[in-house]
C-alpha cells in the first residue's frame, strides 16, 4: 500500500465543482429574487431600491470567500485533540455557540417581537442561531464518529440528545422553528449512523401521533388557529397574501419582476415568503425548477457522503444535507399553508446575511470533504494495485 501524504491535501480532480456551481447559482438566483421582491419596499423605506440587494450581495461575497477558504482547510482539524483531555475543536465551537445563545437571550436585539440578534455595532447584526446550527452539526458528527456503537441502543440516542438539548432549549425560547430544525438535523444524523432503526421509527411515530393528538384535542394554539382559518383570520394576513401570490402564478408565472403581491401585500416578501414571489413570477415551472435545483444540491452532498471513507466527514455531509432539505421542505410547507406557519428561511435564497454566510461555510466544509473523496478513491486504487 502506497503511502498517501496527508500534506498533499487530497486531489483537485475530485473537488465537487457541480456542488460549488449549484451553490453559487442558487445564491445568485436568490439575489435576483431578493431584488425583485424587495425593490418596491426598499424604495419606500430606504429610498434605495437596491438596499436589500446590496446587503445580501455583501453577505454572499463574504460567505463565498469563507466557503472557498474553508474548502481548502482540512476539515479534520476539528478532530485535533486539544491540551484538555478528550476535548477537541468541535466541543469548543459548540460551547462557544451555546454561550453566544445565552448572551443573545439576555442582551440580544429584539426585532418583530423576538430576541434573536446580536449587534455587531456598525457591522450590523448577526443571528447566532445560524452559527449554532453549524456547531451542532460538527459536534454531533464528532460524537457519532467517536462513539458510533452507542447508537445501537436507544440510550445512546438519548445521550446525544442530552448533549444537544442546551442548544435546543436556548434557541427554542425565542425561535421555535430553528430549534425544530436543529432537532431534525440531529435526528437524521443519528438515524443514518445507527444500525438499529426500530426506536427511531418509534420516536418519529410518537412525535407525529403526539402532534395530531394535540391538534385534535381541542387545545388550540394561536398558530393552529391561524392555520385553520387562513382565509378569515386577521393574523393570517401574510400567509394568505402568500397563497394569493402562489395562486396568481399559473403555469409560467407573471414574469420576473411582475409580482403584484410583493407591492406591499406580502409583508417582508424578500424574507421567509420569497418562495411565494418565485411562484407568482416564474409560475409552477419556475418554482418546480427551484425545488429540483435543491434536489440536485442534496443529491451532490449525498454522493459525497457515501463516497467518503471517513465517518466524521460522512456525518457532516448528512447534517448539512438534513439542514438544507428540512428548511426547504418546511419553508414550502409553510408558504403553501400545509402546516401552521413558522418562520423558516429558504436556504441560500431568502434574505438574511447570517443564514447565507453560515450555510456557505457549511458548503465549504462539504467541498473540502469532496476532495477527501478523491483521496480515498486513490487510496483504494493504490490498494488494489
Amino acid at each position, binding site marked *: 500500500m502506497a503511502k498517501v501524504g496527508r500534506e498533499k491535501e487530497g486531489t483537485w480532480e475530485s473537488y465537487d465543482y457541480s456542488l460549488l456551481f449549484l451553490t453559487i447559482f442558487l445564491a445568485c438566483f436568490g439575489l435576483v429574487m431578493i431584488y425583485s421582491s424587495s425593490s418596491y419596499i426598499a424604495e419606500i423605506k430606504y429610498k434605495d431600491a437596491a438596499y436589500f440587494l446590496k446587503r445580501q450581495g455583501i453577505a454572499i461575497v463574504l460567505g463565498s470567500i469563507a466557503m472557498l477558504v474553508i474548502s481548502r482547510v482540512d476539515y479534520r482539524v476539528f478532530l485535533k485533540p486539544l491540551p484538555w483531555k478528550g476535548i477537541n475543536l468541535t466541543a469548543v465551537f459548540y460551547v462557544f455557540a451555546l454561550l453566544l445563545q445565552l448572551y443573545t437571550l439576555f442582551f440580544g436585539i429584539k426585532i*418583530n417581537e423576538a430576541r434573536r440578534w446580536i449587534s455587531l455595532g456598525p457591522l450590523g447584526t448577526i443571528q447566532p442561531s445560524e452559527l449554532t446550527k453549524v456547531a451542532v452539526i460538527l459536534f454531533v458528527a464528532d460524537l457519532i464518529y467517536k462513539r458510533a456503537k452507542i447508537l445501537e441502543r436507544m440510550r445512546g440516542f438519548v445521550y446525544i440528545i442530552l448533549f444537544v438539548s442546551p442548544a435546543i432549549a436556548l434557541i427554542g425560547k425565542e425561535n421555535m422553528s430553528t430549534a425544530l430544525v436543529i432537532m431534525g438535523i440531529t435526528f437524521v444524523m443519528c*438515524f443514518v449512523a445507527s444500525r438499529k432503526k426500530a426506536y427511531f421509527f418509534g420516536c418519529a411515530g410518537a412525535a407525529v401521533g403526539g402532534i395530531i393528538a394535540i391538534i385534535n384535542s381541542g387545545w388550540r394554539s394561536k398558530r393552529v388557529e*391561524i392555520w385553520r382559518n387562513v*382565509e378569515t383570520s386577521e393574523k393570517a394576513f401574510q400567509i394568505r397574501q402568500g397563497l394569493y401570490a402562489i395562486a396568481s402564478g399559473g403555469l409560467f408565472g407573471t414574469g420576473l419582476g411582475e409580482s403584484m403581491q410583493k407591492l*406591499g401585500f406580502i409583508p417582508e416578501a424578500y424574507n421567509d415568503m420569497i418562495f411565494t414571489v418565485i411562484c407568482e413570477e416564474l409560475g409552477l415551472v419556475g418554482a418546480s425548477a427551484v*425545488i429540483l435545483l435543491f434536489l440536485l444540491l442534496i443529491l451532490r452532498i449525498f454522493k459525497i457522503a457515501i463516497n467518503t471513507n471517513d465517518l466524521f466527514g460522512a456525518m457532516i455531509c448528512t447534517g448539512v444535507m438534513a439542514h438544507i432539505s428540512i428548511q426547504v421542505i418546511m419553508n414550502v410547507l409553510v408558504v403553501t399553508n400545509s402546516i401552521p406557519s413558522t418562520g423558516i428561511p429558504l436556504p441560500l435564497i431568502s434574505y438574511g446575511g447570517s443564514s447565507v454566510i453560515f450555510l456557505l461555510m457549511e458548503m465549504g466544509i462539504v467541498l473540502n470533504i469532496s476532495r477527501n473523496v478523491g483521496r480515498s478513491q486513490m487510496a483504494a486504487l493504490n490498494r488494489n494495485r
Partner: protein
Amino acid sequence: MMKTHSRRSLLLVNAVIFLLLLVLIGRLAYLMIGRADYYSQKIQDMHERERSIKAERGIIYDRNGNILASNRPVCTISVIYSQMTDREQVIQVLSDELGLGEEEVRKKVEKVSSREKIKSNVDKEIGDRIREYGLDGVMIDEDYKRYYPYGELASKVLGFTGADNQGIIGLEVYYESTLKGTDGKILTLTNAKGIEMENEAENRIEPAAGASLYTSLDVNIQEYVQQACEKALEAKNAKRVGMIVMNPQNGEIYAMANVPEFDLNEPYTLNIETEGELTQEKKTELLNTMWRNFCISDTYEPGSAFKIVTAASALEAGTVTRNSQFYCPGYKNVEDRIIHCHNRSGHGAETFVDGIKNSCNPVFMEIGERTGIKNLYQTFRKLGLFSKTGIDVPGESSSIMHKEENVGAVELATISFGQSFQITPMQLLTAVSTVINGGTKITPHFGVRTVSADGENIRVLSYKEEKNCVSKETSETMKDVLEQVVASGSGNKAYLEGFRIGGKTATSEKLPRKSGKYIASFVGFAPADNPEVIAIVMIDEPEGTYYGGTIATPVVSEVYANILPYLGIKKQETKVAFD
C-alpha cells in the same frame, strides 16, 4: 469508511426527501393550477376588502361658478374584534353617540370578524367626537357623501350618486369617469406570526380627487324656469311640465326643468303621496318615473310647433315662398278622408305667412303635398330628426318616424302639421334652433369644461356642429315669420313689451285620440332677429283649457320677462305689426 447500513439509511433519507419534494411540487400544482380560479376571486375580494379611502368626487358648477353638487365629509365607523380592549365601553360609547340600540351594537362588537361595520354616513362631527374617546379597535374612516346645495334644482339633469359614490342618473353618470377620481387604499401589515409590524407605517396609497365639471346651467334661470313650471303644473293640475332654455347659437343649455322634480339629497324618497305599503317592484317603478328626464327620454307628437320644420323644409325645397297663396275652407280632402282645420269655418284666402300665423292645417297639408316626402325627409334628416341629439346626459330616446316608402298621402298630410310621428322635446328644440340660428345644427349640452382637482388641467369640451343645414335665406324668413306669430298671430300671449320674440304654439292630442288628454306646448326665441335664447315648454295633460297658445305661451313669456334682462338682452323697439 461509511458503514453499509449507514449508506442504506442515507439512501432511505434521500428517498424520503425526494418523495417530500415531489409532494410539495404536487401541492404547488394544486394551488397554482387547480385552485387558481378560486384564489383569483379571493384576490379580487381582498382588494375590495382592503380599507379604501374614497376619492373626493369632482364638483359640478353652474356657468357662474355656483356649486350644484359637492361633497360633505362623513365617517364610517367600524370595529376590529381582536384589537378591542374594553368591549363594554365600546358598546356604550357607540350606541350613545350613534343613536343605535345597545343590542344592535353589542351583536356587531361581539361578532368575531376581522372587521365589522357599525354605521356609515355618520356626520364628521360625531366621528371626531368618537375619535376623541381613543377607543382601541374602533376605526373611523373618513369618507365623502354627495351633497346638492339646491336640493330639487335640475334634479333630473344633475342626477345623484349611489352608495359607492357612483353616478346613478344624469350628469353624474355621463361624466362619471371625469368626476370619480381614483380611490386610495390603506394596507395594514403583519408578519408571518401575525404580529402587526411595528414602525411599519400603514401603507397608504393616496386617493386622487376627481375633476370638476363646469356646466352651462344657470342657477338663476333654472330657478325661474322651475318656478314657472311649478306654477303651471299647479294651475292646470297637469301631470308634469317640462321646459328647456338653451342658447340656440351653440347648444349650451341654461335650464332644463322636469316638474315635479325631486330632492337630490333624498333620491329614494318618493315625491308623491302613496297609499299603503308599496311592493319593492312598485316602488322601483315609481322611483324610475320620478327620476325620468322626460325632456329627453320621452317622445311625443310635436303638433303645430312642428310646422316650423315643415315650413323651413318647403322653403329649402323652393316649393313655397313668403307670398304663396293658399285657401282654407276649414278642411282638406286627403284620399278618402276629410281632415279638418282647428278653425272649422275656415281661414279663407291666406298667404304662406298667414298660414303659419293662423297655424292653419290645410295650408300645411298643401305645403306638404307640394314639397313631397322626399324633400321633407331630406331636411328633417339635416335637422337631426332621425338621430339622437347627442346631449350629454344618459337616456336619450330616438324619434319614431314613418319609413319614407310607407308614407302615403294621409301620412304626408299629418306629418306636415306635426302628427303621426314622435320626437323628443329636445329634438324639436334642436331642429328649431338650427332653423333660426342661420342653419347650423348644434349639439345641445350641459358640460362646458372640466378642471382637474389641482386646477392645472383644464379641458374645454367641444361638440359637433354642422353648418348650412338650412340656407341663410330660409333662416331669415323663418325668424321673421315666427316673430309675426308672436306679434300678431296664435303666439300673441308670448308678446313681451320691448323684446322681439319669435315662436310657435302647439296643442297635441295624446294617443289614444279622443281620450281628452293633451300636451300644450310653445317654442319661442329672442331676440327674433338674432336669437340668443330659445325655450320650449310642454304642459302634459292639463285640465280645463288645453290650448298651447293659451296656457303654454304665458309660461315662456313669464320666464322671458325675468331672464331676458338677466341675460343682458337689451330692450328695443318692437315691431307690432297688426297688418
